[in-house]
């Protein structure tokens, strides 16, 4: 079962965890065969939101952030069940500084 672990951090804490540590975490997960993808993101100020309404594309600056925490990166993992996914999420280093949202990945209906 695939789970997307979304890493959320307050703006001030985006660099609270050293890249080195995140690289090591990714390497460990890759070796265990559970990692499908993992990437950190630039801060939310660099974001662009795209919408299509009535066939017209609208492009705006950033999302409207309602909370102090912003999406800082993600890990797409393959885990046996939610318990295993929670164990992995707890080992993602920024979990100490912010939070990790664990979402099961849905299959699209053909």
């Amino acid at each position, binding site marked *: *079962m695939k789970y997307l672990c979304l890493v959320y951090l307050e703006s001030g804490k985006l660099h609270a965890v050293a890249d080195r540590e995140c690289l090591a975490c990714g390497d460990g997960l890759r070796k265990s065969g559970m990692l499908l993808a993992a990437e950190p993101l630039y801060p939310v100020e660099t974001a662009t939101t795209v919408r299509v309404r009535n066939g017209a594309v609208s492009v705006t600056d950033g999302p409207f952030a309602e909370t102090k925490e912003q999406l800082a990166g993600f890990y797409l993992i393959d885990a046996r*069940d*939610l*318990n295993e996914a*929670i164990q992995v999420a707890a080992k993602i280093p920024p979990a100490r500084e912010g939070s990790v949202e664990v*979402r*099961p990945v849905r299959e699209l209906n053909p």
Partner: protein
Amino acid sequence: MMRLVAVAATESVLETVNAVYVSESRRVLATLIRLLGDFDAAEEALHDAFRAALEQWPRDGVPSNPRSWLVSAGRFKAIDGLRRQKRFDPLDEAGAAADIAVEPEVWSGDESVEDDRLRLIFTCCHPALAADAQVALTLREVCGLRTEEIANAFLTPAPTLAQRIVRAKAKIRDAKIPYQVPAREELAERLDTVLRVIYLVFNEGYAASSGSTVTRRDLSGEAIRLGRLLVDLLPEPEAMGLLALMLLHDSRRAARTSADGDVVLLDDQDRSLWDREQIGEGLRLVRQALSSQRFGAYTIQAAIAAVHADAREASATDWGEIVGLYDVLLRLNPSPVVELNRAVAVAMRDGPEAGLALVDAILARGDLGDYRLAHAARAELCRRLGRTSDARASFERALTLTRQEPERRLLERRLAELSK
């Protein structure tokens, strides 16, 4: 004549089916959830199995192992239903009426069935579910209460409660919360959640003072049953401690309220009304939990309740022992409420002045400023010291904070007594 005999036989079989439903339906459900991997499918299969029992048992006799018969029947019906759905077959009357062939009991040996009940408890109390959903799901799936019963007991609209249960089941299915007893290294933490759910159910019933008291009171009984089940399945010291705590508190039930529904405080209770059998069971469990050396906060609270239970009259209470136990509890579980309770025990041991100093210190820190019992405790201590106007002010503050009717009456009574 023959016909009459047959009717009588049928009636006794129906009684048997009912009795089996009461004693076995939760076990059968727990196993069906494992076999079918889905709560809703298992519930439907459970009903199908009992429907089949109602048809077949009067004719063929009650099977020697009703539980494994029901598990087989439920599983058969569910798989049959799935097959039919997949093939888009119209409902085949002959197939639906086909008798259940009881398969060997590979999946319903006693041990795996008991494991299934634990799996069910831990899944319903999974920390990834919302706290109120854990409570609702546990009462529904483990205790077998109907949604309306739970809604009544928690003074929640039934649709809200049903929604909670639906959401929780969907999360179990979609996020794939596994149906398992947690591994050793996770057990302590996961057990905490289960104990919290049970204690919450107990307190909801114990503190019942609004709404329909009778149904809410049943919650305490339900919590005690759950606690017993847990101790049977997983005899961990804290599970024993919680069961002991509930039994000891519940043993005072008859003495806690007067005939008019007024609160009777511990000091004024008629101790001959205390349930000695429950106290005996509670005391045994406390001793057992304490001797394990692996106990926690529930066991200490049970030990405190045990000291009260040991005292034949209020004046015989060993307050020194109780203060000592609160000291241990504060180390395990530091909280202003525990501090407040300790302060009251200190007042009983060393006099109201010593207790009042501690209560005032807690309030001065800004903790418990909105906690009615802190002001009620302060009022009592001031009253005992003859500081009537301070006592009045604190009783009045407590009154503005209370939302429970019998408690309000008690505070008003105390206030009136001050003016005498």
